[in-house]
């Protein structure tokens, strides 16, 4: 379909200005009037609207980044690499996703650079260095088990306790203590099952989220996701990545303590993002021992490290937890 109807340059400027959010009230009125009365303007607006939608979709899927430009460098600090769901991001390039062109050799190269950068990091401790070290530790392919507590002082009914196993930045298994469901990811697929029910599997969390909302009795679990564009805030990597992108950080405790405590405060209002995040990390290893997130509605979530015992290799795959369940792909 070619756009045979010609719109004037003024109309085109109004339409593009609208998408840039740069129109004055008077110009918005003018655009509204043209849309209401002029078929050509409506046709032009539709094509622009579809184009904007596609550009956002291409961006979301990582198809806009120039292929020859790696998204990470040594200056990015630890954790700006590898697995598809990891969103640790360079300060100079706040990407939410790792583009598909990020091949394994690039990942390996960046890992070496990152490790070098870490080794050469100045010995003076500050909030940024604690965060970087924690990000690196969170990337390690080590199983860690956390107790997750959801609470709100105004509503005890919302209290919930869950157990979370994580390995690196992409594998996790989470289940509430009442065993009403279990959800996880093996690094490539997300899955969720309830006792005696099917197991829902998808490679795209955005497809799973709507299904979960209907099927999980306690929907608060979905509140842990900041947005469908971001990974679940169930894993430490996602949490640290979010801090780096959107929060001002300060080191709360002085040097020389066994744990480093950083407090992160949201720079500007963001949908579903916690107002503050506090992280306690082991001073030697950088491993996050405890993390607390607080929302404006007084909801809070606490993650406390229980142990670092090695789990079965298949632990993060759904057959391990729902061996006889019917498979339903989304």
């Amino acid at each position, binding site marked *: *379909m*070619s*756009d045979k109807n010609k719109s004037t340059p003024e109309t085109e400027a109004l339409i*593009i200005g*609208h*998408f*840039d*959010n*740069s129109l004055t*009230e008077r110009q*918005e*009125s003018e*655009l*509204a*009037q043209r*849309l*209401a009365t002029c078929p050509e303007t*409506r046709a032009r*607006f*539709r*094509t*622009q*609207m*579809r*184009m*904007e*939608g*596609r*550009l*956002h*979709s*291409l*961006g*979301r899927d*990582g*198809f*806009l*980044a*120039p292929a*020859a*430009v790696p998204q990470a460098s040594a200056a990015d600090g630890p954790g700006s690499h590898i697995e598809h769901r990891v969103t640790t991001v360079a300060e*100079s*390039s*706040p*990407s*939410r*996703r790792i583009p598909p062109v990020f091949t394994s050799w690039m990942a390996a190269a960046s890992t070496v650079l990152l490790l070098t950068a870490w080794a050469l990091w100045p010995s003076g401790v500050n909030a940024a260095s604690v965060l970087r070290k924690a990000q690196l530790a969170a990337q390690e392919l080590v199983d860690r088990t956390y107790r997750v507590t959801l609470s709100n002082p105004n509503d005890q009914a919302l209290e919930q306790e869950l157990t979370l196993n994580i390995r690196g930045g992409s594998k996790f298994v989470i289940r509430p203590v009442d065993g009403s469901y279990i959800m996880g990811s093996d690094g490539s697929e997300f899955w969720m099952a309830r006792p005696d029910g099917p197991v829902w599997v998808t490679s795209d969390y*955005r497809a799973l*989220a*709507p*299904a979960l909302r*209907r099927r999980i009795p306690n929907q608060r679990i979905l509140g842990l996701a900041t*947005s*469908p*564009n971001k990974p679940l805030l169930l894993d430490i990597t996602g949490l640290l990545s979010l801090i780096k992108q959107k929060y001002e950080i300060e080191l709360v405790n002085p040097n020389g303590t066994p744990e480093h405590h950083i407090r992160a405060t949201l720079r500007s*209002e*963001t*949908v*579903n993002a916690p107002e503050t995040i506090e992280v306690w990390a082991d001073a030697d290893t950088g491993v996050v021992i405890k993390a607390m997130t607080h929302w404006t509605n007084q909801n809070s979530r606490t993650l406390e490290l229980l142990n670092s015992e090695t789990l079965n290799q298949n632990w993060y795959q759904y057959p391990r937890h729902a061996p006889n369940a019917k498979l339903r792909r*989304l």
Partner: protein
Amino acid sequence: MTESQPIQQYLQLRSEFMGYLYAITRDAELAEEVYQNAAVVIIEKASSDEAIRNFRAWAKEVVRRQALHAIRSRETARRHGRAIAPELLEAISKTFCEDESTASIVQEEAKAMQKCVDELPQEKKKLVAMRYEHDATFDEISSRMNSTPAAIQRALSRIRKMLHKCTQRRLALSEVQQ
């Protein structure tokens, strides 16, 4: 469009719906959230026995209602300084809902645009990526590109016009070839 599951049909229409949602929210994050909320409605409706005659038209209405509800409840005016003028909101929604382009036409347009994006010079593509992949503001882009916000806005405006012209040219060419 084939008669696939409603949620699959919905996912196939993603770009079209996101375009509308972005047009009325001008907030990629909120647009995504509304898109997800509408997906919940789609799934719930799909589970019922009620027949949906024209999925695309019906889904558009679901998306429109969810969007208007989100805009009201989220007080976007507070986040963006000024809310979109109500008459413009109405006009955009009407433009979106009355769009009668067929799915195949929309797909052709998408393919043509994809080729045009692929052909963009690296520098221009980088700008587009910053804006649409990283949701960077003009201020943020300008500080990284050693430029001014106004210059970045003009550059992106030119790129959009280029993409539009290129897409239309490709579509016209394919019409001639057919």
